[in-house]
């Protein structure tokens, strides 16, 4: 019954999305005022229904209802409950339902919470959100039904891909998806404002918190995914330029650009058309990412099923939505009035450069990701584009971007002069020069990119604090703190990346029991290798005694796990985190002569990469909180004035 109820809720939600669109379209016509009030409630109920459908699917997984095909193919009664729960989205249909659920709930949230947008624009926004929803409901119901039943339930399920059986699965996909799909709100806002020809500072102020919210979760999701790949794959790398990673990076780049241009629009009423364009591009990138990951044209841990019909379905949706939005943009961009002007040497100017660089990096990543697919489609030739391309093409631009990020926040709005700006960043520049000298002296022979990375991190880290200079810290607005902390996070993350790539030390040996090996400042002794048993796996586990110099010994236990259903092995690395870096140990195979392969890495300051990512997100959260509080205060003040006047 649960599965049928879920399917019914999904159909009802789809019907309400249709209603939401029809009501919205009719309400915007002359004389349709009577329907204005109906659109918001419909959007809220649609969100509730799709959330209910998703909840019921989770219930099917928790109860391991094997008569549901999806559960039978992706779960197993012996799976620990956390993976039964998270396994709901560890497959194609479930993850698409999560996607659509977030889309519907985001629409409902806009209907419930958004008070600043003029009513017609809001209605147009909700109608646009409903149109996006309709396409993806159709995709779920006709091409990826998660609630399909099996005529004859099997005795046992096929289990979840062992690589996915990790706490990361409970956290990474939902945060990433909320970020991804949350950008749909920006897209719908842009479409709504184009429909009602209402692009301006108020529109930007209304849109900003939604963009900020999606961007925060996208940042967290990418950071979490990077750390997950780092410890789960056992390769010691944290970013592989895998197309699936690029699929999450591209919306982030676009959303970051949007976040900055929307600030120009909100504060100075400039960059109107450009901001609308970016809002369209950002969610388009989310859809491109969904297409890349869900169509099965890429083989990866993220691609669950290869079914060409699904690929063409998503591709068709992609073309309709992106094409439609761009056509609307082309038709209406002429009616978007020119915003206010500014000098190139100004805060706006720096933000324009920021936007151009982010867009250029986005273009480079997009080209590198799609090029192999395009070549294969045209000539049938198979090739792949790897890290050498992305590092060479995107790395230099990213460094310039970081440098601009250091100078932008100390520039004035509208117009500024180079000399005072130079004076304001003199201290950070001196620090960067000192860093250059120190690194060149202490680590001769370091490669260019890591060297520049360390130098930029030092300079920009200091420059990011400059907006707080000589300010009363207690009266500094929260969103300024947010910006400072986010920018500091970028510098911290950059320092981690540069340090990891420049200073990592590796030891790879086949070790007998009792032998001691050195890596970085550590000595590591292999004490023994024992079998261990988990809930649905068996493993061999090494005991390593680790000492730093003459310090106290600690014990580490890297494992090699064997899962029975399906028969798969995974490496569970053991990682010891210290203030100044991580010791990363992987147990390999025995060589048949009593020796075990051990791979040991000492990665100085590698944790800064993800700490920086977390800082960026925290800064975003502070800014969001600050904006919402200020908006609430302004609203209350306005209401008080009105009450007084009445």
């Amino acid at each position: 019954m649960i599965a049928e109820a879920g399917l019914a809720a999904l159909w009802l939600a789809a019907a309400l999305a249709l209603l939401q669109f029809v009501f919205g379209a009719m309400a915007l016509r002359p004389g349709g005022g009577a329907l204005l009030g109906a659109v918001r409630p419909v959007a809220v109920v649609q969100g509730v229904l799709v959330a209910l459908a998703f909840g019921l699917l989770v219930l099917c997984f928790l109860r391991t209802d094997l008569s549901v095909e999806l559960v039978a193919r992706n779960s197993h009664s012996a799976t620990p409950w956390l993976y039964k729960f998270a396994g709901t989205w560890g497959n194609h249909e479930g993850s698409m339902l999560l996607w659509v659920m977030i889309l519907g709930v985001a629409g409902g949230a806009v209907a419930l919470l958004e008070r600043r947008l003029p009513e017609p624009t809001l209605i147009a926004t909700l109608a646009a959100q409903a149109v996006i929803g309709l396409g993806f409901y159709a995709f779920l119901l006709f091409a990826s039904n998660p609630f399909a039943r099996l005529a004859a339930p099997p005795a046992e399920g096929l289990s979840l891909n062992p690589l996915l059986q990790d706490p990361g699965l409970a956290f990474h996909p939902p945060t990433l998806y909320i970020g991804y799909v949350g950008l749909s709100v920006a897209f719908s806002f842009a479409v709504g404002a184009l429909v009602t020809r209402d692009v301006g500072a108020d529109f930007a102020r209304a849109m900003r918190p939604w963009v900020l919210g999606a961007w925060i979760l996208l940042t967290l999701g990418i950071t979490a995914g990077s750390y997950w790949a780092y410890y789960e794959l056992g390769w010691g790398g944290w970013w592989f330029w895998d197309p699936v990673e690029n699929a999450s990076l591209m919306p982030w780049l676009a959303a970051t650009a949007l976040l900055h241009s929307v600030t120009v629009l909100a504060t100075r009423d400039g960059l109107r058309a450009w901001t609308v364009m970016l809002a369209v591009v950002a969610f388009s990138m989310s859809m491109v990412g969904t297409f890349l990951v869900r169509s099965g044209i890429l083989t990866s841990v993220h691609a669950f099923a290869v079914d060409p019909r699904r690929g063409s379905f998503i591709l068709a949706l992609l073309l309709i939505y992106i094409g439609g939005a761009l056509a609307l943009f082309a038709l209406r961009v002429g009616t978007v009035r020119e915003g206010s002007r500014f000098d190139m040497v100004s805060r706006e100017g720096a933000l324009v450069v920021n936007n151009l660089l982010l867009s250029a990096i986005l273009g480079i990543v997009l080209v590198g990701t799609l090029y192999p697919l395009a070549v294969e489609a045209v000539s049938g030739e198979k090739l792949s584009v790897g890290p050498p391309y992305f590092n060479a093409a995107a790395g230099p631009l990213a460094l310039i971007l970081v440098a601009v990020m250091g100078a932008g926040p100390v520039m004035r709005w509208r117009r500024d002069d180079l000399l005072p700006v130079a004076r304001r960043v003199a201290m950070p520049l001196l620090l960067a020069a000192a860093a250059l000298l120190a690194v060149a002296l202490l680590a001769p022979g370091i490669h260019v990119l890591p060297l520049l990375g360390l130098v930029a991190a030092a300079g920009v880290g200091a420059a990011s604090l400059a907006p707080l200079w000589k300010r009363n810290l207690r009266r500094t607005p929260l969103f300024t703190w947010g910006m400072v902390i986010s920018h500091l996070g970028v510098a911290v993350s950059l320092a981690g990346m540069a340090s990891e790539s420049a200073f990592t030390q590796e030891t790879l040996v086949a070790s007998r029991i009792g032998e001691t090996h050195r890596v970085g400042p550590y000595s590591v002794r292999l004490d023994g290798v024992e079998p261990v048993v988990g809930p649905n796996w068996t493993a061999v586990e090494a005991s390593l005694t680790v000492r730093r110099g003459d310090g106290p010994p600690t014990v580490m236990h890297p494992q090699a796990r064997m899962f029975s259903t399906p028969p798969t092995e995974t490496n569970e690395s053991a990682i010891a985190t210290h203030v100044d870096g991580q010791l990363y140990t992987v147990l390999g195979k025995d060589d048949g002569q009593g020796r075990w392969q051990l791979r040991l890495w000492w990665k100085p300051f590698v944790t800064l990469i993800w700490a920086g990512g977390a800082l960026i997100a925290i800064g975003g959260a502070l800014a969001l909180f600050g904006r919402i509080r200020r908006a609430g205060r302004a609203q209350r003040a306005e209401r008080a004035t009105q009450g007084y006047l009445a």
Partner: protein
Amino acid sequence: MKAKHQRLTLAILAVAAIIGAALLAMSALRDQAAYFYTPGDVKKDGIPAGRAIRLGGMVEQGSIARAADGVTVTFRATDGATAVPVRFKGILPDLFKEGSGMVAEGRFEPGGTFIADNILAKHDERYMPPQMAGEMHKTESLKK
């Protein structure tokens, strides 16, 4: 600055950025794009030593040999018609075995041996690198 000038400056900047990015992307793509090769491609194209590529193929039956240090392994990667010797120092992926598909990242040394920095094998026993599937299919149908 007049509104018209401002628009013009912005437009020029945007165009310059796009062209710059496109040039950067194209030059990097020309150097790095044909980054995936099968043993047959290697024979046909002649890859210069030291260039970073991916080599995809099946591990030839009976070709795996382990060196005395316990961490170095040599084997031959084949597409059914051509085979290339590969040397790898590190921990092999769990499903790496003779007769199954793998992708090696690395470069050729002057002697013609492929030195792999990293070896990927999919965590799925039915997996064959997608770039390989077509090639294997071709060679198999040739044999028939």
